[in-house]
């Protein structure tokens, strides 16, 4: 059993009150969470230090503008947070942040992390069309019942890692049928307990409802299998890859928004990877014709090789893709396959080394000749 704080308010209101308490009591100097920009459902991550500015914050809004793990990494890369800050993150955002910390791209020092069981989020496209705001009632209703909506992002619909790792506080959301009346926060760590101490509410001993979550996971698994089966023929062999990635416009947006793709000096952005007329000549002699600019399959394969081991399946890539390429499911599928090879779940354990930064002396003899 874990200690839990129960506030008799709906989840969204309850968490805002808790965040306000944290600011007012001086336990934290700032809150990092989603805040509304306007009434049409545009939201952005913001750092908030005045409690009245939390009024229009929406910590569990079903949209991921950017993977917040990436934002926190930029925030704490050069120096750790100097004052205590509490961040409300989705499970995949914490995982991405942990993967970045392993790459020395950020620090958890002075950070408190609040997360929740995650019901998934909508696409940017839907947000731009004002549909997220319109669908909110439907969304919360489905989350309450532990159902999966068809219009959520594919990677969310098929995500089995909806329970956060490394959160100081986990808010019980998925499958909680009284979430509009009660906000239950599990205090996973001493840090979490420290935050909740003296907050008005009821203290109890509680666990997440494992049975409900297992049911939910089973639905997600089913959806994942369906999506993976659909994508398999589309990425089969060179012809499959060309079919799928051929329409890539080389904007590299997927890489830019990918939390794991963090290199500042990217090979694919370097002038060295531009084709000169002489390169075209060589290729034309070989092939007779060549796409301009070339290298879309190369880019995707290269990115796949570089990040698959740490891909948390957050789906930011697909959300950013203007050509509607199902990148997130492809990366998730290949990612899971290589992660399984090294028995690695990205973002689960901060102490566990990145598989490519370590080795065993006796292993993998099957690839040596």
């Amino acid at each position, binding site marked *: 059993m874990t200690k839990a704080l129960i506030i008799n308010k709906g989840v969204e209101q309850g968490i805002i009150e808790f965040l306000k308490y944290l600011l007012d009591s001086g336990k934290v100097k700032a809150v990092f969470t989603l805040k509304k920009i306007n009434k049409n459902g545009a939201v952005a991550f913001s750092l908030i230090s005045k409690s009245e500015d939390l009024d229009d914050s929406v910590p569990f809004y079903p949209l991921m503008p950017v993977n917040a793990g990436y934002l926190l990494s930029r925030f704490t890369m050069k120096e750790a947070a100097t004052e205590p800050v509490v961040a409300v993150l989705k499970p995949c955002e914490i995982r991405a942040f942990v993967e970045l910390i392993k790459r020395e791209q950020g620090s958890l020092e002075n950070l408190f992390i609040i997360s929740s069981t995650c019901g998934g989020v909508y696409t940017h496209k839907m947000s731009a069309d004002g549909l997220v705001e319109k669908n909110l009632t439907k969304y919360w209703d489905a989350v309450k019942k532990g159902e999966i909506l068809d219009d959520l992002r594919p990677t969310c619909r098929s995500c089995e890692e909806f329970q956060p790792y490394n959160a100081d506080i986990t808010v019980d959301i998925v499958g909680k049928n009284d979430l509009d009346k009660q906000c239950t926060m599990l205090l996973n760590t001493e840090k979490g307990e420290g935050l909740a101490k003296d907050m008005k509410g009821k203290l109890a001993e509680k666990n997440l409802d494992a049975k409900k979550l297992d049911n939910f996971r089973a639905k997600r698994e089913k959806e994942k299998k369906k999506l993976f089966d659909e994508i398999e023929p589309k990425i089969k062999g060179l012809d499959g890859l*060309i079919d799928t990635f051929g329409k890539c416009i080389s904007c590299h947006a997927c890489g830019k928004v990918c939390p794991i793709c963090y290199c500042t000096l990217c090979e694919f952005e370097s002038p060295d990877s531009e084709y000169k007329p002489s390169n075209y000549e060589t290729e034309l002699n070989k*092939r007779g014709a060549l796409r301009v600019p070339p290298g879309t399959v190369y880019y995707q394969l*290269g990115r796949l090789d*570089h990040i698959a081991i740490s891909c948390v399946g957050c789906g930011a890539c697909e959300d950013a893709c203007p050509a509607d390429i199902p990148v997130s499911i492809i990366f998730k599928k290949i990612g899971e*396959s290589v992660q399984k090879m090294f028995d690695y779940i990205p973002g689960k354990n901060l102490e566990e080394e990145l*598989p490519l930064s370590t*080795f*065993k002396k006796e292993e993998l003899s099957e*690839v040596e000749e």
Partner: protein
Amino acid sequence: MNKNDDYLPKIIAFLCNWCSYAGADLAGTSRLKYPPSILPIRVMCSSRVDPLFVIKAYLNGADGVIVAGCHPGDCHYEKGNYYTRRRFALLKKIFEDLDLEQDRLMLSWISASEGPKYAKVATEFTEKIKEKGKNPAKSKIFL
């Protein structure tokens, strides 16, 4: 007569400076015979080979790609080749999952004294690639 008999594959070999390149050198100075299909690229350590190099070589039409380094435990930089092995295994897995021809890629350990092994690897791999035929990537336009 096999139609592949006069086809000479093009195989890119990334050879580490301290072992495999010296092994290739020894094969040459020992006048061992092996097919002229290998195009060696010398790198300071096999772990200098970003898998991107291998992907690029493959997509640009190399019929085979070899990454060769010191035997495990013998790396000049102590552990570079262990990292290489993990990266290579991961790359092979990705090739396998995408149904690309992962058998066009090879990882081999060749020490500075193993001239005959270099000649053997070069000959056998060339034969294997000859049987497979040309890399289909060579004729693709939209890569």
